[in-house]
């Protein structure tokens, strides 16, 4: 079992309600630095809310959040990349316009990497967002996030709606990305079977609480199950 590394992001006693619905209920998590952390849970388990709070788009009712050694704010938005689950791109923009827009907004954005990844993902820079299919948009969203050289990538369901071929390309890329340096990845996904070999650390979230967490290898050994099987057991 690997030793626990320093946290790139952490929450303590984090709670969030939407009306009468409890999205998060006193969540304490430390996301280890330099690892790919998978956030697994059924719909409505609080994964998206947690990631939005980490990204500074939603505010907790209670508790504390630290991301790259400070509360989520305008300054550290430059140090992490957030990929939301939904379609958040301006439909009138061309891909090349968005790449230039991101390059001007983020000092950490690597324009040449973005163009290379766009090509690798079988997308054309002169295409308009409105002309792309759902899968193509998902791929391009990922291009925009992964083209930033940052300490942390927060990806909310990045594989949803993407064909199997592109999914494996994306996962390989993610793996390469943080193997290269000190980057960390927090990834929420339903695609456990396909992606579990890439996970270092796993957090299973259900009913707004952490149901199970630990290093992927240690969990597999302890329960003698694959992560896919373990997920089924936990949320049965």
């Amino acid at each position, binding site marked *: 079992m690997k030793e626990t590394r320093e946290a790139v992001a952490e929450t303590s006693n984090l709670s969030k309600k939407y009306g009468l619905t409890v999205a998060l209920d006193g969540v304490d998590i430390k996301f280890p630095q330099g690892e790919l952390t998978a956030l697994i849970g059924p719909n409505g388990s609080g994964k998206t809310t947690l990631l*939005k709070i980490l990204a500074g788009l939603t*505010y907790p009712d209670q508790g504390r959040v630290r991301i790259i050694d400070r509360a989520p704010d*305008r300054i550290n938005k430059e140090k992490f990349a957030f990929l*939301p689950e939904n379609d*958040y*791109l301006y439909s009138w923009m061309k891909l090349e316009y968005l790449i230039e827009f991101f390059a*001007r907004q983020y000092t950490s954005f690597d324009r040449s990497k973005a163009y290379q990844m766009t090509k690798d993902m079988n997308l054309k820079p002169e295409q308009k967002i409105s002309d792309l299919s759902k899968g193509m948009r998902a791929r391009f969203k990922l291009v925009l996030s992964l083209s930033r050289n940052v300490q942390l990538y927060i990806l909310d369901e990045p594989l949803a709606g993407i064909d199997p071929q592109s999914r494996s390309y994306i996962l390989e890329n993610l793996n390469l990305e943080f193997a290269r340096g000190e980057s960390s990845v927090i990834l929420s996904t339903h695609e456990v079977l396909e992606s579990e070999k890439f996970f270092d650390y796993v957090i299973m979230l259900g009913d707004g609480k952490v149901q199970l967490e630990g290093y992927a290898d240690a969990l597999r050994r302890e329960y003698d199950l694959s992560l896919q099987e373990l997920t089924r057991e936990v949320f049965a």
Partner: protein
Amino acid sequence: MALLSLWKKELREISFSGLTLLLLSAAFYIFLYYQARPGTIQIILGVIYLPFFIYPLFLLFQGYRTFSREWRERTIFLLKSLPRSGYEIILAKFLAAAVVLIVLMATSSTGIYFVISRNFTAVNQILPPEITALNWEAVLGWGLVIYFWLCGFVYFTAQLSSLTSRFFNRFRWLVTLLVFYLVNYLTIRLAGYLGLLFDWLPNVRHYVIGQAEEAAGLIEVNGGGLAAAVLILLILFIISSLLLERTLEV
């Protein structure tokens, strides 16, 4: 560079509605130009400023729409993920609307100039001498200041109302309307207090008939009122920016 790119994006977002209004205004003045004759000049003079009543409505619409559209199309996720402050985002949006307004006003002013020039003699005949003798630089200068303030006020009030309605999941239209009326009421009250607070500022005087002795030809703008008007726009701008950056969730 970041603000400039944000401004360009905003300008592109409102370019369609701005361009439509520009073409309509141009068509209106071309129509007036060819219809203006000595016999119709009184009607022409009556409607020649009509677009200037439409433009504040355009600003009102833009102020409301800028953020409601971001939320509806989910692009607010992108906007709020940028390492930009609320001030920068609001400023970029306002500057884009202001540029469109300036272009519209320039078009209308050019249209008015050509219509009047073509019928200069007829216009001079029907206008009373106290109007034609006016110092138009001062009158137009102050007219523009007041007009720009009104457009800015309408824009920021609509924007603040739209942002406030985002705290609610239902009845957003109703909340927007209520906040819009409430902000107008509070602004009038606040302007009164601010005007008194800055009463010590000197008044600004312009003799529009060019004879300093004639009180009737004097435009006198209260310095306190002027400061209050500027401060109100600034307060609306700051509140909207803080709401966007620190309070509103997506």
